[in-house]
């Protein structure tokens, strides 16, 4: 039956193409795409910023400190302008509109004044690392600098770094009153929930001003 021959040949050809395509697809999906990595660690280390370092305030009649404008974390190559952040209508903390800058929560004390100052930055954008991508590399004793609008500088040292599930965020520890000048740096971390597009945890770096 000669009429059947072209149909059979076509079926054979299509079948072979589908096999090839399926095999290629299978092989490709066996390789997971690696996480985007920022530039090598050695390149990113920054020099400490310069400026008059102002001692922490006395508890009696403390001098008001100026607004924070620049954050530098030499060890992980962070140097960023600080935007100002408030609360959303739902009462949650605003985040910077750009993933490459950090922001200071204006409802928290100013960095270097008595109390727990709060600075927030993104770990990543949709396509790559954010300003706080390497925050989790910090450890106790590492230095953090905040420059203020009047040119003065306050130096902090990391005291601890914690990871909290967002639905068990320790509000009192992070935002509650403390009796000395402290800093909290907040970003995301832990598992990423692709269904909601959010990380499940927050990473919080606790630091205290150096006197």
């Amino acid at each position: 039956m000669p009429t059947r021959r072209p149909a059979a040949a076509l079926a054979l050809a299509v079948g072979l193409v589908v096999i090839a395509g399926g095999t290629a697809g299978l092989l490709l999906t066996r390789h997971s795409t690696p996480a985007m990595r920022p530039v090598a660690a050695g390149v990113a280390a920054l020099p400490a910023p310069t400026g008059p370092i102002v001692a922490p305030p006395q508890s009696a009649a403390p001098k008001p400190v100026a607004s924070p404008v620049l954050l530098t974390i030499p060890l992980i190559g962070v140097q960023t302008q600080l935007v100002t952040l408030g609360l959303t209508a739902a009462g949650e903390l605003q985040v910077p509109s750009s993933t490459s800058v950090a922001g200071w929560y204006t409802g928290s004390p100013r960095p270097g004044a008595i109390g727990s100052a709060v600075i927030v930055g993104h770990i990543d954008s949709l396509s790559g690392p954010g300003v706080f991508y390497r925050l989790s590399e910090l450890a106790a004793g590492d230095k953090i600098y905040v420059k203020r609008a009047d040119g003065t500088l306050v130096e902090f040292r990391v005291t601890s770094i914690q990871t909290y599930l967002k639905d068990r965020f320790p509000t009192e520890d992070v935002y509650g009153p403390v009796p000395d000048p402290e800093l909290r740096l907040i970003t995301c971390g832990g598992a990423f929930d692709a269904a909601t597009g959010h990380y499940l945890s927050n990473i919080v770096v606790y630091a205290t001003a150096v006197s």
Partner: protein
Amino acid sequence: MNSWGAYRKLFMLGATSALLLGIPAAATAHASSATAGTGWIRLAHLSPNTPAVDVYLYSFGNSNAMIVLHHVAYGTVSPYESVQAGDYSVAMRAAGASASSQPVLSTSVTIAAGHAYTVAGMGPESGLRLQVLEDELTTPPGQARVRVIQASLKQQVVNVTLGSTVLASNLKFANVTSYQTVSPGTETVTVSSSGGNAKSSVTLAAGTVHTLVVLDGASGLEVVNLEDASGSGKPPLGGVSTGFGGTVPHGPGSPVPWLVAIGAGSLLALTGGLRLRRGRQLHAGV
């Protein structure tokens, strides 16, 4: 004798304030520093007729002082120092006295992780004692907390109001009130006594804890507003959304659709191949 007296007072003060607040003292612990195992201490001179002193802080059993504050005069309150939780002793010597000389006064203080303390020289010089006060580190959301230390010897009994809120009534010299919750804002503090009044404007921001100290001034009374602790007046709710997942490694996708495609392709190719072969055989047969 002296240190024992102070210790007993401390115990009684602690017990009283815990009763008044109706909560265990541990409720004010600050967990972040508790994790790090540190607490805070500050030192104060609040005895009006006692000359300046040198104040020493020792880790218990260690004769080398951790901190020495020189020439601490009446009305001085140091900043808080962050220290490892544990037992410490505080000693006062006359200003300029040798560090190895016998202290005028000493007391021991146990610093719990996440807690803050004020150790103050209180009372008249003749009955000077070192009192250990536990300082508060929490506020209700959007509120401030404030207490009063009465350190005026000239006016031994005072009443203190903040706007229309009574902070202390008939508070005697060398006594301390419990903290109380007040609305945040700038208000007038009025200290009244049989010998006269003093007014002062104080700002108590939301999320801050304060101690108002009534002192003998050069003329009349003075009020010093100490900021004991500060946090976010309006703590944000929940966690923070600071990531979009662009650096998350993507795991291997499911192989099933590809395996199905290979299977279907094989079936198709096999069927086509067999038909072709059968067709050839039929031709050959004819």
